[in-house]
Structures are given as C-alpha cells and as structure tokens.
C-alpha cells in the first residue's frame, strides 16, 4: 500500500496538534509521503522541522482564490459555501502535485488520507489500526459515510478525516474543477460543506465503506487553554461555539494564533 497523507487548510491550532498527529500517522503509515497545502500566511511557520522526510509544501495566496465573495462566479450560484470551496481549492492544488509526483516516480498512491491541521487524530487500539490499513478499492472512500438520519433530507458527510482509493482520491481532489459546474448554470442546490462532499461522492458513484478507524476531534483554541489535570488538551467539547468573540480573540492571541483564521474581527 502506497500512502499519501494530505494535510490542508488554515493552520489554526497546527502547532498544538502536529506532534500528536504526526506520531499517530507515522505509527499507522510509516512510509507515507506528506503533502501540505496552506495559505501563504503559513510560510512563516516552521513546518519542515516536524518531518524527517521533506513534505511537499504548497502555499496558496488567498487573494488569488477565484471564488471570493465579490466575484461574478459566486454571485451566479444559488448557494456559495466558502468552507467547502476553499478546502476544495487547497485540495485541487495538492492533487496536481500528487499527480506530478506519481508520473515522475512511475507509481500510484492507492491510499490517500485527507487530514486537517486543526483536528486531533488518534488510533485507539490494534483493531482500529487494522481498519486504517485495510486496502481500498480504486473507487472507494472510507471513514466518511452518509448520515443515517439524512438531516433536512440532504446528503451529509463528515469532513474531519477520510481515506480514498487511487481513482476516488483524484475525483475528490478535482472537486474544485468539478466538471459538472457549467459556467452560468446554477449548480449548487445542496447547501453546506458537508452535503457538497457527500454529493460529490454519490454523484461519482464512489463506494463509501464507513468504519471509524481514526478518532478525529476538532482541536480549537479553548481546548489548549483549558487543559486537563495531566496537561492534555480538553478535546471533544463544544465550548468554542458558546464563547464570545472577545474571548475567542483572547484565546487565539494567548496561543499565538491569528484570529483571522477563525474569521474573527481583529
């Protein structure tokens, strides 16, 4: 199994999660190649020092993001979901680098793991590790699946972590350039970041064999401000959502995180 680990998005709590996440992934996929895509503001971060083998680094200037709110492109859409499209944009550029490397090295990644910098990943036991190393078919996705409840009668998938087989990975990485988005047509009738991922998966007939190998929890600034007695982060709660904007900004500043990464007025 040839593994590519794709970490993409705003760094946010990156410095507080990376040691754990790197250790977890090294344990499960010791020979993986890392691809990291972040906005250009992350260039000032010391990313390389966490890696023994040089990862592929992509820094994207957000001013050049084609789907910014004031463009004609997004005005023509019925719904515009920045959380979905910004990540799709990062993924798309990672996908180009991944394909270039595959062609140059004459190999193919058949296990592509999608991660976020602001999530805390864990493998709880050997059973989970076995699940995480189960080979996927080319058109298969694991770790995410349609919600049984189908809230609001729509497709729903998690977006914290997923794995994809070789062709499924390329299809998901191409979703920014999704061939169904004919310019001028109203394509996006499914209206949030979770439903759009699910819609992409279903429309491309990618099989979703759901099993939860990775324990993935959002890691937000409050989790690293209010530590447990043993010094570990307080993960799993939803304190962040209930905090006031000034408190959120204070938490970011205390941890050395740019509040703009959480869309906080600063």
């Amino acid at each position: 199994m040839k593994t590519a680990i794709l970490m993409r998005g705003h760094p946010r709590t990156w410095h507080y999660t990376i040691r754990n996440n790197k250790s977890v992934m090294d344990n499960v996929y010791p020979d993986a190649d890392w691809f990291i895509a972040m906005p250009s503001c992350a260039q000032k971060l010391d990313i390389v020092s966490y890696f023994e083998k040089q990862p592929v680094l992509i820094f994207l200037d957000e001013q050049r993001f084609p789907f910014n709110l004031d463009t004609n492109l997004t005005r023509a859409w019925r719904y515009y979901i920045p959380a979905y499209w910004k990540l799709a944009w990062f993924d798309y550029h990672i996908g180009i680098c991944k394909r270039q490397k595959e062609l140059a090295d004459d190999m193919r990644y058949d296990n592509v793991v999608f991660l976020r910098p602001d999530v805390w990943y864990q493998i709880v036991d050997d059973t989970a590790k076995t699940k995480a190393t189960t080979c996927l078919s080319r058109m298969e996705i694991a770790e995410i699946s349609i919600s049984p409840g189908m809230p609001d009668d729509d497709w729903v998938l998690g977006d914290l972590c997923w794995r994809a087989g070789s062709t499924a990975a390329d299809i998901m990485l191409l979703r920014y350039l999704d061939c169904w988005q004919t310019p001028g047509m109203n394509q996006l009738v499914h209206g949030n970041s979770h439903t759009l991922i699910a819609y992409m998966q279903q429309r491309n007939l990618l099989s979703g064999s759901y099993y939860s190998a990775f324990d993935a929890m959002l890691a937000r600034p409050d989790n690293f401000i209010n530590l447990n007695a043993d010094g570990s982060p307080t993960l799993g709660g939803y304190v962040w959502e209930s905090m006031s904007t000034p408190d959120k900004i204070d938490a970011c500043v205390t941890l050395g995180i740019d509040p703009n990464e959480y869309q906080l007025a600063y």
Partner: protein
Amino acid sequence: MLIARTEFITSYDKLFKSIAECGLDIEAQYLKKPYDDFAIITWGMTPRFTDSTPPCPGNVRSDEIIFESLDVTVHQNWIAGHPRAVIKLAACSIDIPKIGFDPWPSHRFTKSQTSTLIWMSQRIGLRVYGMLT
C-alpha cells in the same frame, strides 16, 4: 481551444500515463484562462479532424467528452471535450492500466485502448459521444 499532444504510443500503460501528462498541461493552461470551451489531447500522428472538420460544433457541456468513434475497432487518435471533462479523464487515466477489468467482455476487440478509455469515461460520470462521420 486548449490542445495538448503526445506522440503515437502503442503501449497502453505509456499511452494512459501520457494522457495524464497532457491533462496536466491542459490544467496549467486552463487555470490561466478558465473560460475556454474546448480541450483536445491527441496522440496520433495525423488526427483526422485537423484536416477539415472541427471535432465539436460548440456549446459543449462541462461533463461531455468526445471520442473519434465509439466503435472499438477504430483506434483513437484523440479525445476532446470541455476542459474540465478532459482534465477529469486525464487525471483518472494514470490508473487505467491497473483496471484489470474487461469492460466489454462479449466484444471480440476487448481491452482495446478505445474500449478502456470509453468505459473509464463513463465510469467517472462523463457523458460520452462519438463524432459523427
């Protein structure tokens, strides 16, 4: 119109990888000029459409891909379509040699380059057409 061209290749494996490389070339062009409405990858020495007939009448949908022919006895010299459709097929074509699947088992020309490319296009959700001759 975006055009990428590779040399004539008989090995399936090399051909499909070459299509993938051409797809990257088209992506590089498309990102600079995203409203072009047509892209072509050629690998034959003398694609017939360059002589007279344009391969598409225009107004191509973004999920449409056009082959020289849907007859699997005809060796393809090119694929064409909306850039996004061409890019999608090209991206997925890296893995085509590993399909290990006979798309049309009842046909006497099974596993031709044509049948494999057409099958893969349909499998990834593209609308597939052959050019009328």
